[in-house]
């Protein structure tokens, strides 16, 4: 069953002669619980696709159905709610709020909803991420790997149906890369979350169930790695 579907998804930047088509009529379906890797050269449009799916960018045209709701037509407040509850977004450069503690950064989506995470779930995530002794630290006091784990914690805290990771290992060494990928796979298995991972590292891509290759804003290949 599809959790995510796009129809004729297009994103253009600029106007007139400087207009660039980053994504060109992309049609895509992703099933619930799938771990999908999106690969492609720099500027191919893979991050743009992820941002559109995450609701942090708006398409120029086309539809994005998440659980049969077209998020491209949602108003600002509903879209914010979608980002908070339905999707977890992980960036290459962590993007934590530097003035908030690690604990608050992780809980941020729930705190924005004026909610507190359940203790059991929070402890479970923190234990899995290995951040138990870093919760009261500020992001600036953490290593790159730890910051990325905090960012993953933030993406997981609301138990969203979809996790979108934009080159989450691009800024990390081999050891941290392996740990992060293990975490994502664990999350995929343990919480049955659908994961879309943008990467240009083929080894990382091979950890996924399915690999989609994008070039010049178009899907040029879509292969299942494992059933």
């Amino acid at each position: 069953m599809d959790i995510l579907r796009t129809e004729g998804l297009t994103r253009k930047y600029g106007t007139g002669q400087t207009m660039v088509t980053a994504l060109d009529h992309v049609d895509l379906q992703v099933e619930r619980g799938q771990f999908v890797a999106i690969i492609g050269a720099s500027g191919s449009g893979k991050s743009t696709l992820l941002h559109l799916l995450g609701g942090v960018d708006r398409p120029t045209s086309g539809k994005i159905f998440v659980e049969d709701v077209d998020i491209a037509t949602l108003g600002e407040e509903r879209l914010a709610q979608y980002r908070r509850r339905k999707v977890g977004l992980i960036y290459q450069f962590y993007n934590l709020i530097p003035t908030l503690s690690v604990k608050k950064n992780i809980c941020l989506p729930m705190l924005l909803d004026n909610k507190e995470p359940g203790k059991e779930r929070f402890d479970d995530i923190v234990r899995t991420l290995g951040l138990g002794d870093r919760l009261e630290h500020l992001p600036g006091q953490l290593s790159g790997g730890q910051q990325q784990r905090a960012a993953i914690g933030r993406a997981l805290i609301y138990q969203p149906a979809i996790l979108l990771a934009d080159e989450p290992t691009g800024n990390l060494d081999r050891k941290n890369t392996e740990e992060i990928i293990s975490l994502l796979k664990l999350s995929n298995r343990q919480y049955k979350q659908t994961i879309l991972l943008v990467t240009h590292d083929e080894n990382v891509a091979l950890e996924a169930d399915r690999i989609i290759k994008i070039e010049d804003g178009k899907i040029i290949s879509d292969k299942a790695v494992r059933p």
Partner: protein
Amino acid sequence: MNIIREYSLDQVRKNRRTSISIIVAVLIASTFLCTLLVFAQSFWNQMVQQEIYTSGDWDAELMDVPADRLGMVRDNAGVKTMFVKGDNQTAFLPEGTALPYFLIQNCDSNYWDAMYEKNMILRGRIPQAPGEVVVSKDFFSQNQTYGIGDTLAVEIDSNVRTHMEGSQQKDAASLTIVGELDVSVSSGYEGYLAYGFMEPDELSPDSEVVVYLQMERRGKVYTAVPQIAQAIGLPKDEYGNYPCRYHSTLLAWHGVYAPGSFFQSDVPKLFLGLLLAAGASMAVFAYIIRGAFGISAKQKIHQLGILKSVGAGPKQIGRTVIYEACILSVIPILLSMVLGYLFSFGVLSAYSGMTSEVFGSRMEVSFSPAAALMAAVFSFVMVLLAAHGPAKQMSKILPIEAVRGEQYSISVKKAKSHPVLAKHFGFLGEIAVNSVNAGRKLYHTCMVTLSLCMLLAFGFLAAFTVSDISNAQAENRNHFDVNITLRTGERIDGALLAELKAMQGVQGISVYARANCAVWLSGSDQSAEFLQAGGFDGADGYIVERDGRYRIPCVLVGMEQDAYENVLREAGMEALPESSAIIVNSVAKNPGARDYEAMQETVPYLNLRQGQRVELTEKYSDDTQGDYEFTVDVAAVIPSMPEIGLAPSFYTLPVIVPMEEYYAIIGNFSDEMEVYNYRNYVNYVAPDGMDEEIQGEAERICSAYLGSSDFMTSSKTERMRNRGRMTGATMFVVCSLAALFGIVGISSVLSAILNSLGQRRKEFAMLRSVGVDEKGIRRLLGMEGFLLSVRPMLIGLPMLIIICAAQCYMMGVSIVEFLCAFPVWVLLMYIVMVLLVINGIYMLASKKIRDDVIVEAIKDDTV
């Protein structure tokens, strides 16, 4: 704590530099608003106090109240306080005094507390018991053997007005003089004015007194007082009104108006002016502070993008800016109340010091909790207004653009070539101008603020300069050097006029009295020349047309008999036996002309001729209460106004009559207009440099006959000096307020420059990495600073020139005259100061750039 509030508080703490810049801007803006309200409150208080000082603290006056009804008035629920004057007496003085009587008005203790007469006591104290009196100053000057504390054996007769008829029963009494009063009464009364003390409860039941009232609810005075008058059985007059009067000036200052008179009062206009000034200031400051909030919001746009990308809604994002505004405004707004008061105190004290001689009193600085609260509310609204724009802007950002920091990064879409700069300053010149252009939005607020500051200060200075030139021109055209106004409310003492006319050392003198009146004419009465120039129909606003008849405003001028006959003789006429009048039959041909000479050009006004009878009316406007009509026979028609120091308004017809005739006519006017029109005007032509000496002598003569509030003197030299003081004092206030604008402007410049240079660290590091040395960086920054500081001048100067030219045009002042009088050097100093300050800030702010380690700055990626 709510995560958005916590985030905002953290941001305030972390971004100290931006926070301080916002706090300074809010502090100064709130101080300005507080100052404005303290100024307004002080002005209002001054006006109220001055009105109370000169006219007393009462709301309404009931006349001819029988003493046995005083209890009913006092017990009326609407009456807060009642005070009583009356029980007038004539005291026959012992033999040997220059005049035989004391004309005594008795007042109760409430009256002495609330009314103005106590302020006229020159020496001694107010009467505190029956038998004590304060006496007019002329008693002491004419009877020097008497002094304060003396007790006189007198015979008392009731009712001042009948004293000269005498023959009533007199009672022996003794009066103790307890003070000297700065008042006088016409020598025709043959007595000295005195004020005594009375207990209302001891008044004879059939005596009538004047009652003054302070009302419980001042706003109800116009309905409550007639009800009181009716309740105590006062009769109505022929117009259907009760014998009562209202303290309309004081009531107006308290926002209470007679039905239908709201729009005629100046107070609502002043209040509206204050609201407009406060609104405009709030808008301008909100615009300025908005820039600071904008910079702060843009500095954290990356974080706002993160917040938005993890699910913060547009309202939550907007709230981060609003919370920041609230957090940062609390302390400065509270502090501004103290600063505003101190600033107002300093400025108003200095202003008062400069103008006290002109106004005759000092302005006290008032501060009330209500004004402070209003200033705080205004300031808070201003802060919210300022934050609203950036909040809305931030709430609309696309999360991914904000995370990438794309939306507000400085970028040039199209680099322009600047051959002149390139030629003289190389590629660094081009970079400088392109950088300043790219940051145009960022610097926009600073430019506008500094331009506004310049326009405010120098616009006012230009207005004063033009006004000074215009006043000096008008003064030069004034034939007379010394002007005296005598306003006793009754016919001026002949002895006083004789002394003034005998003034030594003067080269010319004129004495006249004047009263407004009107004549109704038909269209055929206008002269052919006037008709050609526009006629009655072209004088809209001056001449009223009703049913084919036109009401022409007239001024009835009373001249001394000898002067009147001189004018007749010069016109080749002889005085007619009765009701003879000279008509000045000329009217401005081009009243709308800007040029003085063109404005002075006249044509014959009406088809009037000698021997004609003209019927005039006291009712010169619809609001005039009296409607006395009188006729005059035209003894002569002359083409221009005799040089007596009176310049009638446009379309006003001067009707000159002998003084005795004048008094006979105004004696029939309504009471209020009769009292007003007893004013006499005495003007002198003085030899060069002697006008103040003659003014002093005239003042000495008037003081001997009149109370100080009954006459007014002025001279050209004094007026010039006062104008200088007023201009200086007002400029001081304007420049002080402009300085506050300037501080906010400089604060926003500082914030914008720091933000801009912070954003461009990488750019400078790159320039250094390709070989631009420290000297080159300094040169680049110096050029940027110069270009930035020149902009407010380029915006402000043309606007200032337009303002100056418009003012010169409107006041008929030539550009050369203006340039000779306008202090251009002050403007140049201001320009140099702005250049130095902005360049100084630029150099200081750029120190970090110059000290940066190149490789670290190049790595400075935020995403």
